[in-house]
């Protein structure tokens, strides 16, 4: 809470700095020659930036660092027997101390030592808060003094302010790179830890997936095996079913809307199709589990087929529906970007509309459609909620769409929700799966974007 107050104070100081700086610059204009390089507002901004930015950076940095130092201080204040605890018990102890310091419930009755440590932590935090506030305000004051002294008719305040803004803009654009790096590094790092425990060959080529590891050394049965082939087969099976729904429906509706439909119909139908894209996936998942799966099961039973209650078909069909608008809007773009002259030439030779479409437009648009399908596949592979809710957990190695299969994303969710220890092979395997998922989707996206770019260049 006090961090908000500190922030508000800084903001107030910055505004004051702006007003004072502007005032000062105005006074300069009434001086001997009365010409200043930048407008008074720029001088004001210049002061405000010096007041606000360094102080805020320091504040953010210390907010991130204070908990780390606080923990270190608590650890150093601990009696020896606590420091000798096993890793799990030690982190539990730290959590207890933190909870006690925060006034929350603890896992067990707190001993006198723990209470003392919690008080130590509270005192440390209080002190840190006071020191932090003083330091930050001092930096703001120093920034103000520096900037205010610098105000001068020749000061290039505008250029400096704009440089600061430009740096901010660049930092914001670099966040995209940092995010990608963060994803890659965290996934690769955790996967490395996993591959120390489980061989990479077993993971890539193993045919058996059952991540339940033994909790105790003497426990029998649950040894844990991490062959990911069944997961990828399951993912591809569901993706294939989804594509069987999404590609024909999406492509044909895109063709109809772009070449046959009147403007009025297009104006109505297109937004309605877009609604399908706006529905949250959790809703599709619920629909798949509660409506589509029983429907398919009952139909199958009426036909004398044996259908699992969480069949791959149900999840796949609903996922296909979700992807229809994606395919249709992408292929709509592609079909529209085929030059009109190609169509006119075909019509000039007496082709009917469908002949022109089938024999001229679609072949010309094929690379683009291929890219669209690739993007749709990458989306289907990464889709999570529908399969979590409608596909099963059992890793069956099968191609039968009526049986239950599991997917990569389902396993990631089931491995990482609920109780977990951070270093077990079971938890780490989720990151290895995530890495595979990331690599697969990234490759498809890069290929698809390449194809699209080449295709555009061809007709632009």
């Amino acid at each position, binding site marked *: *809470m006090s961090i908000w107050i500190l922030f508000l104070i800084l903001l107030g100081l910055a505004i004051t700095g702006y007003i004072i700086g502007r005032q000062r610059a105005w006074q300069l204009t009434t001086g001997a020659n009365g010409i200043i390089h930048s407008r008074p507002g720029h001088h004001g901004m210049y002061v405000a930036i010096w007041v606000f930015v360094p102080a805020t950076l320091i504040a953010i940095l210390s907010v991130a660092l204070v908990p780390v130092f606080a923990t270190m201080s608590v650890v150093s204040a601990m009696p020896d027997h606590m420091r000798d605890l096993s890793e799990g018990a030690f982190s539990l102890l730290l959590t207890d101390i933190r909870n006690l310091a925060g006034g929350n419930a603890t896992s067990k009755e707190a001993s006198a030592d723990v209470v003392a440590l919690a008080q130590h932590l509270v005192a440390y935090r209080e002190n840190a808060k006071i020191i932090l506030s003083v330091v930050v305000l001092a930096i703001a004051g120093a920034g103000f003094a520096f900037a205010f002294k610098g105000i001068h008719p020749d000061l290039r305040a505008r250029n400096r302010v704009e440089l600061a803004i430009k740096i901010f*803009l*660049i930092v*914001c*654009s*670099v*966040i*995209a*790179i940092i*995010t*990608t790096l963060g*994803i890659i590094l*965290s*996934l690769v790092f955790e996967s490395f830890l996993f591959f120390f425990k489980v061989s990479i060959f077993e993971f890539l080529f193993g045919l058996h997936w059952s991540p339940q590891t033994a909790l105790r050394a003497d426990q029998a049965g649950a040894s844990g095996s991490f062959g990911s082939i069944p997961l990828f087969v399951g993912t591809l099976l569901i993706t294939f079913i989804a594509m069987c729904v999404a590609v*024909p*429906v999406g*492509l*044909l*509706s895109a063709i*109809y*809307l772009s070449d*046959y439909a009147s403007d009025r119909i297009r104006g109505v139908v297109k937004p*309605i*199709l877009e609604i*399908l894209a*706006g*529905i*949250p996936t*959790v*809703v599709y*998942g*619920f*629909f798949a589990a*509660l*409506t589509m799966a029983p429907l398919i099961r009952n139909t199958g039973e009426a036909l004398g087929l044996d259908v699992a209650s969480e069949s791959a078909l149900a999840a796949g069909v609903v996922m296909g*529906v979700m992807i229809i608008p994606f395919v249709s809007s992408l292929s709509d773009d592609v079909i529209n970007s085929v030059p009109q002259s190609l169509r006119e030439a075909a019509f000039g030779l007496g082709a*009917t*509309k*469908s*002949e022109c*479409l089938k024999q001229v437009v679609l072949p010309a648009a094929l690379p683009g459609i291929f890219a669209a399908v690739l*993007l749709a596949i*990458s*989306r289907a*592979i*990464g*889709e*999570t*909620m529908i399969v*979590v809710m409608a596909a099963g957990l059992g890793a069956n190695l099968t191609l039968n769409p009526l049986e239950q299969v599991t997917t990569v*994303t389902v396993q*990631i*969710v089931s491995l*990482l*929700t609920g109780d977990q220890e951070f270093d077990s092979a079971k938890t780490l395997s989720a*990151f290895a799966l*995530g890495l595979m998922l*990331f690599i697969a*989707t*990234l490759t498809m996206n890069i290929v698809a974007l390449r194809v699209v770019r080449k295709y555009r260049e061809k007709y632009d």
Partner: protein
Amino acid sequence: MTDITVERPADQTERAERSARLLKKRHASEFRFKLYGVFAILVALVVLVSLLTTIISGGYSAFYQTEMQLEVTFTPEKVDPKGDQSEASFKKGNFLSVFKEAVQKTFPDVTGRRDKKAVRALYSPGSYLILREMVMEDPSLVGKTVKVWLPADDVVDMLNKGFIDRNLPETDRPISDKEIAWIEKLEKAGHVEMAFNSRFFTNGNSREPELAGIWAALKGSFLTMVVTLSLTFPVGVAAAIYLEEFAPKNPFTDLIEVNINNLAAVPSIVFGLLGLAVFLGMFNMPRSSPLVGGMVLALMTLPTIIIAARASLKAVPPSIREAALGMGASRWQAVSHHVLPLAMPGILTGTIIGMAQALGETAPLLMIGMVAFIVDPPGGLFSGGLTDAATVLPVQIFLWSDMPERAFVEKTNAAIIVLLSFLVVMNLLAIVLRKKFERRW
């Protein structure tokens, strides 16, 4: 000569016939092709309509709830053991016994431990808590006998709403003949009623369907969205301005662009893994909190907003910039005074659509532990709510969809209706914004 003149018409008619047949075939195939298109659109529309109808028809009934009247006597000794009408005293009070007594009085002829328990179970198990809350709000009730409407147990509610068939054999339904007889007795006395289910909007999660509500999840969603918006909007717009207006054409800029395009297509669950490994694992940020959830969703929506903002900046004609530069404005002045205001409607539209996406997102939030069972809503925005354990509406839907009770199906549908109405409102807002402020150059 004559041979030829005789032969030609024959040949021509044959050719004409053949081409007529061919033309017919071609037109038929044209017609079929068109039909495929119509059929494809119909398939999509039918699925959409059936999706919406199953959800609305399955969910509207959750907005009202069966309530049963009970005559409750708040005996002072039981309710207020300390006798000072203080909150602490009420908390110690034995409201369960008050409730038991009231039920006993309504059904005087029910005897035997098991039957007494069964008849109490017709009312919500949280009834005594509701009674306590009533007294805490209005201490003058102590010592009085009042008629209170209490929520019925979910099985009774389902029976009353007609989801359980009374005519089924007893073994096939979750409610016994005896219990139905008791309910019918209450019905005859006019003590069973349908009322608007305000608890659905004011309560947090609960194991009892009749007490479960979406308020905690709504609040969690709100806090998460505040974090997401306040991070992603400034950063997204700034990045778009840089890339569109300032960036020189060099490999570094290309790298950023490729990155953004790829991030837009990274599966959302991968962002969840990033949040788990970096925000929770490395920075030890609070698990299950709207702060971390909002940060993960901000990273996820960032590409959407950057792409939308760039498109609308690009749509502003260069003449505007050139005019500003010609008047002596700096690049930044040209952008901030002229280009950005003109591009704002488009940027806002893109932002709203990105936020709608984030509002419906579930998977990454499961990774950072926002699946907790949340009864109490998180605190306010400035009173620590950002770091409290919280859940969001889509996750609540996911959690309820897993519950075995029949009544939770209805709740899930109702929560979906609420979520969808939020999304509809946001999208309508985006459309209005676009229609009203969009300029064609």
